[in-house]
């Protein structure tokens, strides 16, 4: 699969502070790609560098296979939802989108239908003539999302897209992003790992300006040889579990227990044994899922907590 966005050893300093420390990243074309990292990890900086808002120190960048960002090569083919940027307050929504759309290269005939589609998309069609200053924070965020999809760009970078949205709108935006899978490359930066997990097929963990891990979501949460048990009450009977399943690795993150099992087991065999022991110990089981969850994997990579019991 070819790359829509590639960083190789990109360094960015803000004065004496190193924001990106040789970042490597490879975003496959057509993927929905999640960028995960703690505050100040370099996610926003990476996005801004990709689209020429910030100048990198060293390293190489390739966007859509034609080199680093230049307006001549990339304008109209890329878009960004910046994190904390405001719109001109007196501009009216429709006029603002028309202005952005025309800059994006949308033809005059296509611009009105495109704006209508996007405003319906983000539930702002009835506010199309309203000045930006009259919108709530969530509405402005939805307008931000709409502008990023003007002209159907090949690569869309969304920095914390669901921040400030109410649950209903957030769910709607998630659906709409999913609909674009395979048609556009979408990079999402978020602290909400459940959102990343729900939307993305590829994930990269960034910490202190460096790539910690990048892979498909399936491989990161190890769906083929891990099972997560979401328990509600009771004390985990670790001794019995270990005795019954001696070569399984156990981890506990709050009320989530993750079993890492070797390939000679099937998931069904594992579940049968584990559920029997948990039910006998009167431990409530709320959910069973293949693989661990992104949050556990992220915390594991970020902090490397030791497993409850080492495998024999």
């Amino acid at each position, binding site marked *: 699969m070819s790359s829509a966005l590639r960083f190789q050893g990109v360094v960015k300093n803000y004065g004496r502070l190193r924001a990106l420390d040789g970042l490597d990243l490879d975003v496959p074309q057509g993927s929905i790609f999640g960028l995960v990292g703690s505050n100040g990890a370099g996610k926003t900086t990476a996005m*801004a560098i990709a*689209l*020429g*808002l*910030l*100048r990198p120190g060293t390293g190489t960048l390739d966007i859509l296979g034609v080199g680093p*960002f230049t*307006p*001549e090569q*990339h*304008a*109209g083919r*890329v*878009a*960004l939802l*910046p994190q*904390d*940027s*405001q*719109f*001109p307050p*007196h*501009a009216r929504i429709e*006029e603002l989108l028309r*202005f*952005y759309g*025309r*800059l*994006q*290269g949308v033809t005059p005939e296509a611009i009105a239908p495109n704006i209508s589609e996007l405003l319906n998309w983000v539930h702002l069609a009835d506010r199309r003539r309203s000045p930006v200053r009259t919108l709530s924070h969530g509405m402005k965020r939805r307008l931000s999302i709409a*502008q990023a999809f003007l002209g159907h760009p090949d690569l869309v970078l969304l920095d914390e897209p669901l921040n400030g949205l109410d649950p209903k709108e957030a769910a709607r935006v998630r659906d709409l992003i999913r609909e674009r899978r395979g048609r556009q490359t979408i990079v999402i930066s978020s602290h909400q790992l459940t959102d990343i997990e729900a939307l993305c097929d590829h994930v990269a963990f960034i910490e202190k300006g460096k790539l910690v891990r990048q892979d498909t979501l399936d491989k990161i949460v190890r769906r083929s040889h891990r099972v997560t048990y979401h328990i509600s009450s009771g004390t985990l009977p670790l001794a019995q579990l270990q005795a019954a399943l001696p070569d399984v690795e156990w981890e506990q993150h709050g009320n989530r227990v993750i079993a890492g099992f070797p390939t000679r087991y099937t998931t069904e065999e594992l579940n049968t044994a584990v559920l029997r022991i948990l039910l006998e110990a009167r431990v409530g089981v709320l959910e069973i899922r293949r693989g661990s969850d992104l949050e556990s994997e992220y915390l594991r990579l970020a902090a490397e907590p030791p497993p409850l019991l080492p495998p024999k």
Partner: protein
Amino acid sequence: MNRALSTLGIVAGNELSDSIRSRRVIVMFLLYLAGAMGATALFITFLHSIEGELVKTLGLDAPKDAGSVTATLWKSRPFRDMLTGLIGEKKLAETLLDVPPLALFYGWLSCAFTPMLVMLTASARVSEEIASGSIRYLMFRGGRAPWLLGKFAGQAAQMFIALLLSALGAWVIGWFRMTGYDGWPTAYHMLWFAVKAWLYALPFLGLALGISQLCALPNLALAFGFMSLVAASVLTSLSNWLAGEGWRRIWDLVNVLTPGAHRHALWWNDAEHLLPAIVFLVTLAALYLFAGYARFARRDL
């Protein structure tokens, strides 16, 4: 290239329409209009009082309206000879004496105040977009240079509209308050002075937007804009005064680099004087604008 030109045009159009939509620019237009109308009314009142003194001294009947005495005086040979002597350049004096007094006053007024209004409206235009982050929605859709040139073009167009409005306001005041008013010649000369004032204000617009690219704080940009206006004026006077032979020739260079040094040429109507002034003023506008761009092109947004 086509994309850059298209970006320039779209940004210029948006800058103009956005300016017209926003209340601040409506206030600015009103300022131009009210300033020109108010100053013209004051000028006519002043003219009327001088004329009153003159006819009293000569023992004639006092005129009801302003302008009748001035119009007669303006055309009289002794008065024209006296003014030619005062100006010192016969050809320039003849050029100016062909212009109705009210248009002449408008020419002086617009050249004196337009740079100030330009600083007031344009010096924060880039910095406020940097400060609010709204620039981040734009830069990936076009280049920085076409965006900036579009901004300049939009502001220049806005300034031209404001100057036309102020000329219209001044003309209307004259029409109401002056006797023997040469309507068409005054309108023609006022329009011509509006164009000249616009050309004269271009380097100030370049300076305002140049400074705006250096500051991420709009208020700071505004303050620097006004400081640069004062500095430019001081440098023009200083360089006029200090220029001379030897090392002092360096002041000739300083003089050429200030817009004020080219203002005098705008009073003429012949190509020999006007064309070099226009070339200098446009070049200075580009020089100031791109001096700021040297930083803007590399700055993190």
